[in-house]
């Protein structure tokens, strides 16, 4: 399947020391790896918290989900809390079935995720609080 150059990167933004990474419409091997790379890059750049936003994700597969373990792994090593936000029922079920929810928390949306992180870490909270006003 041909991809435009715009599709080659996962969109992300910084909210203070928290990186919000936006997953695409299909979480498979390729898009999973892009998310993983983006998360690692953000951590390397000094982010102290990660939110992966699945609001746009209609379908996930097990390979894509398995790659999220790499994200969990990387976040754990960096002592950066991680939240998956906006996952639809199906994706949330899969995360649950495959045991990811033992290592990562789910939030309804990015805002909720940021609130979770804010209450978790003083450091991240101060930045998140700036953002939330």
């Amino acid at each position, binding site marked *: *399947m041909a991809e435009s150059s715009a599709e080659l990167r996962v969109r992300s933004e910084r909210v203070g020391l928290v990186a919000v990474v936006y997953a695409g419409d299909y979480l*498979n091997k390729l898009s999973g790896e892009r998310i993983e790379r983006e998360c690692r890059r953000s951590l390397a750049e000094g982010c102290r918290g990660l939110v992966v936003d699945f609001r746009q994700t209609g379908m996930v*597969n*097990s390979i894509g989900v398995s790659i999220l373990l790499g994200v969990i*792994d990387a976040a754990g090593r960096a002592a950066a809390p991680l939240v998956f936000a906006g996952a639809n029922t199906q994706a949330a079920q899969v995360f649950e*079935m495959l*045991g*990811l929810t033992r290592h990562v928390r789910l939030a309804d949306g990015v805002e909720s995720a940021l609130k979770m992180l804010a209450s978790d870490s003083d450091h991240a909270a101060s930045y998140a609080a700036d953002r939330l006003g």
Partner: protein
Amino acid sequence: MSTEAPLQHATHRRILGRVTPDLFVGRGAEVEEIERLAPHHSGPRGLLLLAAPGAGATELLRQTYDRLFRHHGTASPIYFQWSRDDRTASAAARRFLHTFLSQLVAHRRDDPSYVNAPPPLRDLIDLADPSDYEWIERLVDAFESARDRADERALIHLCMSAPQLAASRGARSLVLFDDVQAAERLAGEVNLGIEIAQTAVNSGVPYVLAGLRRGLIDTLNGGNSPQRFDSFGTLNLDNLSDADARTLVERLAYERRVALNDETRDLVIQQFEGSPFYISTFMQSARRGGVGLTSFLECQKLYVDELLGGRVNRRFNTVLEEVAPVLTTRRALIRVLHDSAINAGGKSPAEAWRRRLELEPEQLYPLMNALHTHELASFNATFMEMSTNTVWRDYLKASYRLQVAAQPRALVVADTLVETLKRAPQAMARHYRRATALGLRELLARFDAQRVPASLLHYDRFSRIYRGAEPDEVAAGIDAEVDLVRLPQVVHAASCEAFHPSMRQVCDEERCAVAHGFDAAPYTDANEIVWLAAEIEGKMEIGRALTEVWCDRLTQVAGACGFKRTRLWLVSPEGFTPEASELLNEREAFGSSRQQLELLTARLSPELAAAESARSQPLDEFEMVIPMGGDTELIAANTVEQIARRLNFPSEAINQIKMALVEACINASEHSLSPDRKIYQRFRVESDKLTVTVSSRGVRLPAAAPANGRNGDETSPDDTKGRRGWGLKLIRTLMDEVEFESVDDGTRLRMTKYLSG
């Protein structure tokens, strides 16, 4: 088509069954009926199992035996097959006693090894359960005493009454007697058939008496003084239905690793008329010969091999040897049978047979009776009528040419192969036509003096009122009609061909029917009427000329058969032109379209209409092939979503099905090393479930362990190896049933989701 796998792999041991339970198809109801005899209850005390030749009665009994053997605390199953190899009635009875005690001990000790390798009679005493020891020892002593006295009558009676004696000592059994008609010709002073019947009826022990349907009752009655089987039920065992035969062929192909496709599968079924014996034999030969069955040519080559030298040949040889043991008589018989077969109608006078076979009447009668019993011909007192069974006729023709006309074998093989190849497409076409026939005979049989709206029998009227109307409007209009026709009470309905064989030249048997009945009470000459109904093929309204041909044709049949008062009824899918309708009215004949017929069926027989409706619906099966890679699994997921919506699955279930399908596709892509890089999918919609089959060519994946082998419960973020491995786990969680199969060249995953799940 790829070969279908058995739905369930049985795990229990086989004792007498010759095939695994997976390959024993279409006999569930019969097995249950026999099993119901095992516990004490108030139902029938036994069953007469009347089987068509090759319908699989022996395997039915053997499979039932294996099932019963697993149950403890109920009757011990005893299977015994009568055989002419015993030669004398006393030898057969002695073998029965030995079999009975061996199988009884085996069941009560839960040790099936004694079934297939019975210990000597005296050893069984020591092996018996302590509670059985005493009576078995006494029985064996009594047996040896009767044997030593050479008292045949006492010996046979003692042996045959063993189940009764055992029951009186608390060892209840269920006796399955197979091939009972074989007892008829055993030598000796005792008529074993009568002895079996008397024991079975009077002993209080449940019996299944199985045999060929044309010979069993005669054997049990000994040709006279009919035994009353009032306490017995009857089980009729015919060949398999088309659907069951399809399942059998597919499972055999899978099990035997025989390549097959839909076309050849159906040809095998049609050629062998759904006989489980012939189908199993044929598929076994394909496996032994390493023959694929992916073309009509391959099928017919194997068929001809079977016919001229295989097990099919040996089966008919055996029957003919039994019917006519003397070689010269047998050869003469083949000539007479062959000549009768090529006669118009396949009939010939019994007297002509006697002269040509040079037999005395007392020799001729058993011969004709044996042919009748094996359904190779029908013996009707004064004439013989040849069976129309295709395999038998093919065998007969080839045997005649080889054994009587002494033609070169190569010529016979070549001609037979060419003929069967030419015939194959015609046989299939006939099968398709038969499958789409409207079922006039069944409908006529259900008339039962009911009143129906007249418009259903007058196409012109129906067309004028309802043409173009919505179904609801038509139904309401018909319900409101006051002009009703009283249909006759039909007392007998049969195909027209059965009355007038030449009709087979102009139409299929299923498309023309004759029904005798009365159009009013009482049953008098004046009220007697015969309906002659025919289904005429046509894509448009039938014109006057063709309508006239059919009216004349049916009138001729009525005249030839001596029918006095008749009613003609023509049915055509699209009805009749105004001119044709005018002719029908002139002849006081009825004319209906398919739509009218369906409405009539719904009124007369709602269950028949429902079955027809289910049959006529297009099969809800879809197939799709996608290339591997490039996220094509999403295309499959979108497709299955549309299909699942047709079944009104809730959205959560639809998502689960989509997810499972995506997993199945990526599993196939990642692990099969597929040479064609394609994923084959089949979606089958049934009323309560959706079954998705995903297959791919290439490396077979182990069925037991998930191909990408991890268990999701063990997820650890520290474990960076084997992060894959959740595909099959997910599929199993998301779907209700999952089967993972290795097939000839690749892997197949079948997943089912139930609506109620």
